[in-house]
């Protein structure tokens, strides 16, 4: 490239233009996580037509986080889980996170079938978002899902509840656009007979075109949104 150093801005612009030409137009940009988190994410939220990983050891907070994102994505959503799992997503609780039970399609599939079902669901323009509970994927399989999501313009969430610790020790390469870790935080009230509002620590472990970050958030029941606790998150972010 024969650009002068001060021509950096135009170089970036031309590169962005080249990239944009090759990328399929996303259906409606991005799905917002929370008002205060979105500006830190590339594309201003979780981009549709892409897959995102959600890790976490606590099945409840991971499920609720995904449920919240599904409701934000709007439209029909699918949730792929292995059959005969011990517990299942429960609409009465997910309704508190804004997810309409009529919009949630549950699919029982495991192993190869689950991968296939996830690909079919992501490829279909009928669905706005897909959650797939999958074991850790190899790069080729993840790439396949990413291509399917691009074809269908669907938000894909890969939920790997038991993978949190392993991936922290040795982060695996991934085709996903972002990787999140959701961990529960103790309630703020401190009273032994009251639980208080739901609080999580959201770790953005990996973001393509963005920086890793950490937020401590509180669920606002009335507004159905996540509020960032500034005191703790700034400190944690450092």
């Amino acid at each position, binding site marked *: 490239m024969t650009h002068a150093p001060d021509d950096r801005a135009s170089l970036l612009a031309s590169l962005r233009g080249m990239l944009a030409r090759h990328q399929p137009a996303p259906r409606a940009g991005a799905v917002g996580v929370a008002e205060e988190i979105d500006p830190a994410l590339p594309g201003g939220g979780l981009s549709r037509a892409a897959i995102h990983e959600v890790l976490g050891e*606590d099945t*409840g907070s991971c499920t*609720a986080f995904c449920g919240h994102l599904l409701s934000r994505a709007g439209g029909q959503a699918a949730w792929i889980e292995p059959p005969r799992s011990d517990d299942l997503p*429960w609409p009465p609780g997910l309704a508190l996170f804004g997810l309409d*039970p*009529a919009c949630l399609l549950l699919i*029982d599939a495991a192993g190869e079938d689950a991968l296939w079902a996830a690909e079919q669901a992501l490829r279909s*323009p009928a669905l706005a978002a897909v959650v797939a509970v999958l074991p850790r994927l190899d790069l080729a399989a993840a790439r396949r899902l990413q291509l399917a999501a691009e074809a269908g313009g669907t938000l894909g969430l890969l939920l790997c509840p038991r993978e949190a610790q392993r991936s922290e020790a040795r982060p695996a390469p991934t085709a996903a656009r972002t990787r999140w870790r959701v961990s529960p935080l103790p*309630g703020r009230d401190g009273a032994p007979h009251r639980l208080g509002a*739901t609080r999580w620590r959201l770790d953005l472990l990996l973001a393509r075109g963005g920086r890793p970050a950490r937020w401590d958030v509180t669920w606002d029941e009335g507004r159905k949104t996540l509020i960032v606790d500034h005191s703790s998150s700034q400190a944690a972010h450092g």
Partner: protein
Amino acid sequence: MAETRRHLVLWLPHLAIERLIRSDPALAGKPLVLWAQSGPRRLVTAAAEGVPVAPGTPLADALAATPGLLCLPADPAADAALLASLAAWCLCVTPFAAAVPPDGIALDITGCAHLKGGEAALLAWLTTRLERAGFSVRGAIAATALGAAALARGGAHGAIVTAAEQARAVLPLPLSAIRPGAEALEAAARLGLRTVGDLERQPRGPLARRLGREVIRLLDEALGRAQSPITPIRPAPPARRAIGCPEPILTAEAIGAALETLMQALCDDLARRGLGARRLTLACHRTDATVQKIGIGTGEASRDAAHLARLLAARIERIDPGFGIERLVLAAEVTEPLGARQGGFAGSAAAAAARREELGQLLDRLRERLGPRALWRLDPFPSHWPEHAVRAADPASAPREPPQGWGAKQRPVRLARRPRPIAALSLLPEGPPVRLGERRVVAAEGPERILPAWWKPGVQPGARDYWRIETEDGRRLWVFATRERGSPAWFVHGWFA
């Protein structure tokens, strides 16, 4: 409209015997006799060709007169099943085929004969095929089914008569050709009436009194004066396309290619008529006069050729081509009105309809591979008992409105399919747990007592005291205690966010 229709009747005089020979070729050429129990006696129902025993003879008499007979019990149900399957095979030449028990097949071939190059060629083709499959066949074509049947049974094998010639052809036939029933036949014999023509020459009033009105109806139909439609083994499907193979095909690829052609033609038909298919079957007519069938159903009416072909293609492997498939018939068995689709702006009704169609196709594809029970939705249900607050529903069904107050209480986002017992410690008999398994409980909200549906009959579980608790590592669980046997037993039932 008697003169406009054409009927072909095949008569299989030795069906019962030939069924046994087909299943056991060693029986061919043996002096075979079939018998059935009739009250205290065993009567012969059928005898192999060349055995001088008339049906209806007591078995003991037959054995006395002709020693060395091979006697086997008759199986009318198996004969009827074979006849029905042969009639189904005949669907490869016409959509209207009927089994005429006990030993006939009637086909309405109006407008179908050109497929094989004329009526004579069609009749010859069918008889050759059935003879090759091991059946003796007599066939005839006439304007009415009964006329054709009379010709076939009366010894005029291969007769093809027009409506005008029919009466003349049927009149010289023996009276038994129209099967008036044993009693009527006997009465007619006493009167000296031996042929159809004898009957025709009698005055109708006294004839009806002596032999019954049924005989008059048979006579009119045999002579082509009246027409009653045949009862096809299945109603003609609303839309149907068939393809004949110049050479019998054997491979899945060839079937797949034929299927694509057929599907495109069928979907064009459906589009012209504003229909969509809910159920499709592909019938493969094999060279040995049997039919192999595969079928699919769709959640929503569709006429998307690529989608439907993909669903059916997954089942092609189940077809056993045998010695080859010579004809494929694709039929839309169940159809529904489906309006023309029109593109529209995002958010418009047209776009919503397109998305619904896409969703229906996705559900069909998933269901095809994962099974019908793998896809479901949890619909809200007005019950306070946690296990009953939602019900599994078919995702294609209309969603249920949440009942009043549903989803207002703090409920977990995941629920255990069955509550998990856990070791817990509480300081007070009715109090919250302070330790749960390995973990210390830092906060507990409750209790919320939930009673089972005590007004319903049957044994109900005990009352549950639910607590929302937070453990020291920040997890929030939904646990409950039951006190059925005095001391509380603790269970984990759900996970909060």
